[in-house]
């Protein structure tokens, strides 16, 4: 069965030495776990201070393996190089990623206008990770992280109905609220969805068409994500949608 991993990172996470993955290691892990291709962002982009610089290194590093590692353009609207990074890399990317919680800005900030317009004109989805790590016990540097504002996410999706928004790594109750809102352009990923019966309940209520597979590697073990969709509990059709078809439909697969 083909698998697309939507929640993957490459590089080093400066706050935890266990969270790192070189390109070679990522490719090896993907091969070992049968991942067809991944939508990947550099870990360094989460706290980067220059859009152009972080993307330059990332796109250069991954340019020879685009069939396996498909780059997602990480943008921080508050940092320099935004327009140039879009201009230079949008055609090579399969989506745009925003870390608004971790970079401390609002999704309704006017600085994001250019990003939403770009996504609309290029038909690229915007991926917005809601969580990355265990916030209860994370280093003090992240004490500022408050609760996810679900209303803000819904308003953003409503303001840009032609743009697909992938709210990746929601907690269970966040995923349920986002799916229950019934927006056509909202998708969620599986990386933080855990509980005995949780995915069955979600799929039973809202279907599988809005759920994408994500591992959140290397924050999480790749193996952990792959253990969620037990064939005994889910139809083959639902598993195929989550593992491959949904992501393949909304991310540009012609690159």
């Amino acid at each position: 069965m083909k698998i697309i991993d939507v929640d993957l990172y490459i590089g080093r996470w400066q706050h935890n030495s266990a969270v790192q993955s070189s390109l070679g290691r990522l490719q090896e892990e993907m091969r070992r776990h049968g991942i067809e291709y991944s939508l990947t962002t550099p870990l360094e982009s989460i706290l980067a201070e220059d859009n152009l610089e972080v993307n330059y290194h990332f796109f250069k590093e991954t340019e020879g393996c685009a069939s396996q590692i498909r780059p997602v353009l990480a943008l921080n609207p508050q940092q320099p190089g935004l327009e140039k990074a879009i201009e230079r890399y949008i055609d090579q990317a399969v989506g745009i990623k925003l870390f608004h919680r971790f970079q401390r800005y609002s999704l309704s900030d006017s600085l994001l206008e250019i990003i939403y317009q770009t996504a609309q004109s290029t038909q690229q989805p915007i991926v917005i990770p809601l969580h990355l790590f265990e916030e209860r016990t994370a280093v003090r540097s992240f004490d500022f992280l408050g609760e996810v504002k679900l209303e803000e996410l819904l308003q953003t999706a409503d303001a840009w109905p032609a743009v697909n928004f992938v709210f990746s790594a929601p907690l269970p109750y966040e995923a349920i609220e986002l799916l229950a809102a019934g927006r056509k352009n909202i998708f969620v990923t599986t990386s933080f969805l855990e509980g005995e019966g949780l995915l069955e309940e979600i799929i039973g209520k809202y279907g599988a068409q809005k759920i994408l597979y994500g591992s959140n590697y290397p924050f999480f073990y790749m193996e952990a994500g792959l253990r969620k969709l037990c064939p005994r509990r889910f139809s083959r059709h639902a598993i195929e949608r989550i593992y491959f078809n949904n992501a393949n439909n909304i991310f540009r697969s012609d690159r």
Partner: protein
Amino acid sequence: MIIDAHVHTYNRSHNALLGSRCSQEIVIRAREAGIDRIVISSLGRTAYLPYPSSQEVREANDDVLKLMQEFPEEVYGLCYLNPRNPDWREEMQRCYDRGMIGIKLWIAVKASSAILFPVIEAAMQRDLFIQQHSYLKNRGNYSDESEPFDVARLGIEYPQARIIMAHAGGNRREGLEAIAPMPNIYVDTSGGVPECGVVENAVAILGSQRVLFGSDAPGRSYTVQQAKITAANIPDAVKHQIMGNNFQGFIRYEDN
């Protein structure tokens, strides 16, 4: 043998997230996940109750006793207690008489509180171990929620008591280091997201024998929590120990 040292019963508050599940399902799902035995407690029939009344404690423990009767080969029961209730001793005896093997303490009293001492002494008299919830949170714990430092003090006060610090105290280095000098304190790996490095850290600080596999199902998944160990960068023999052998040693269980 795979033993999950930290499981709870389904309760009514789970329904919104996990659906309405029959009580037996927690055992059946463990079996499907390849787990041979589960160590289970109930923190309340309606929800996880931090300060349950005597009746709520009895109801919770009755649910566990029922599972023990239905699945005697697969279920080890823990007796949930609120040490602030005047009749905790009677409830401990009732659960002990019916075959429970340990005490479950959540957030009614800090582990370092003298209120808890008679409970620990009574548990030791019956050769019951203590599974003590513990977390070290950035933004502060609940008022009576134990930090690993509280558990460490308990371990110093009662060096002969067998204690499991649940959730590895939140898996933070300082928490693990706090209990490291006390060989009578083990940790379970339950709860939390499957972050890379957490089990490796626990093994590095405590050694391989004091780390026990736990899931915290049903709020967490059996299979995902197993991956914290199976995917960890530790030797296979150590994984094997954590998944079951260590717990067998912990309860002095010799059967295979």
